C-alpha cells in the first residue's frame, strides 16, 4: 500500500469515527437539542417540572382570548392530539395567528396553565403570493364540499 493510500484510509476512518461519535452524542442529548416540547410530551410528564421550558404547536382555532387590560392573552396550544392552555402578557409577534405555529416559553403552574414570558411565531417553508394562497384555500373548500357530497351519497 502506498503512503498516500494509507493517508486516505486514515482520513476516511477518522471522519467515520468522528461521525459515529457525533451521532452518539446527539442521540444521547436528543431531548436537550430540541427547542420545545409538544403538548403530548408535556402531558406524558417528559417536560421538566417546576422550571421554565418551551412548548410548541399550533394556536387552536377559536381559542384566543384578549383580556380587558389589552395586553394579556389566553390561548390554547395544540399538537392536534393533546392541547395546553397558555397565559401571556406582552406583545405578540405579527405572525401570531390562530391555526398557525407558535413556541411559548414559561413555567407550568399548579393549575395546569403555562404562564409564558416569551411567545414566538413559527412559520412554514412555503412561499407564495396572496392570490395563490386564496386559490389554494378555495380549492380546499371545494374539495371538502366534494368530500361531504360524496359522503352524503354514500349514506343514501
Amino acid at each position, binding site marked *: 500500500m502506498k503512503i498516500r493510500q494509507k*493517508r486516505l484510509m486514515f482520513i476516511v476512518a477518522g471522519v467515520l469515527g468522528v461521525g459515529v461519535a*457525533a451521532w452518539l452524542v446527539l442521540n444521547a442529548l436528543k431531548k436537550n437539542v430540541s*427547542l420545545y416540547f409538544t403538548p403530548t410530551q408535556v402531558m406524558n410528564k417528559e417536560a421538566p417540572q417546576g422550571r421554565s421550558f418551551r412548548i410548541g404547536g399550533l394556536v387552536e382555532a377559536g381559542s384566543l382570548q384578549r383580556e380587558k387590560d389589552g395586553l394579556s392573552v389566553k390561548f390554547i396550544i395544540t399538537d392536534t392530539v393533546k392541547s395546553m392552555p397558555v397565559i401571556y402578557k406582552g406583545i405578540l409577534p405579527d405572525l401570531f395567528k390562530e391555526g398557525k405555529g407558535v413556541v411559548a416559553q414559561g413555567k407550568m403552574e399548579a393549575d395546569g396553565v403555562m404562564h409564558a414570558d416569551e411567545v414566538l411565531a413559527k412559520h412554514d417553508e412555503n412561499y407564495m403570493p396572496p392570490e395563490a394562497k386564496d386559490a389554494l384555500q378555495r380549492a380546499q373548500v371545494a374539495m371538502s364540499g366534494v368530500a361531504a357530497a360524496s359522503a352524503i351519497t354514500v349514506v343514501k
Partner: protein
Amino acid sequence: MAINWFKYSAPSTFYGLAGRLVPWFAVPAAVLFVIGLYIGFFVAPKDAVQGEAYRIIFIHVPASILSMFLYLVMAGYAALGLIFNTRLSSMMATALAPTGALFAFISLWTGALWGKPMWGAWWVWDARLTSELILLFLYFGFIALHASIDDPRRADRAAALLAIVGSVNVPIIYFSVKWWNTLHQGSTIKFSGTSMHVAMQQSMFTLLLACWLYAVAVTLVRVRSIILERERNTLWVSELKEVGL
C-alpha cells in the same frame, strides 16, 4: 482532449491559469447579482403570510447554502493536501476559508434580521441556528490555527485536520430541522421539489449562482496572492512581470 491535471497542480502554472479565469467568474457574478436582485425586488410577488419581509430569503438562503458547500470544498482540498502532499490543494483550502466565513456570517446576520420581525426574536438556541454558529467558529478556528503556526506546511497539516473533523457539522446543519424540533422552518428546497412561487425561485437560484461565481472569483484572486507570498523566494516569481524588482 485530456487535461493534464498534474500540470495545474503546480503553483507556478496554476498562478497564470487562475489569473486568466478570474474575469470569467467575476463578470457573470456581477451580472447575475443585478438580475437576481431585480427579480427579487421587482418581479417576485409579496408573500401571503410574511408580506415584503420574506425577500431577505434571496440573500439568506444562497449565503447559507454556500457557507456549507464551501466548507465541504475547503475540507476536500485540505484532505487532498494531506493525502497527496500537494502544496496547491492546501493553498486553495486556505484561500476558501475567509469567503466561507463571510457567507456563514451573512447567513446568521440576515437570519437575525429576518427572525426579529417574523418570529419575534433575533436569536434562539435552536439546532439550526446553533449548528450554523458552530460552522462560523470552525471557519474562524481554521483561519486562526493556520495563522498561528509559522511554518506554512505544518500549518497546512494542522488546519487540514481541523477542517476534516469539522465537516461532520455540515450534515448536522442540513438535517437539524428534520431531526429536532426547531423554530427554524423546514427546507424549502427539497429533493422532491421546491415549495415556492416560480419568480421567487428564479431570484433565489440566480443569486445562488451569482454567489457561487463570486466565491470562485475571490478564491482565485486570494490563492494567487497566497502563491506569491509562499513562493516569493523562487525564480519563477522573480521573473513575473507584475513582481518586478
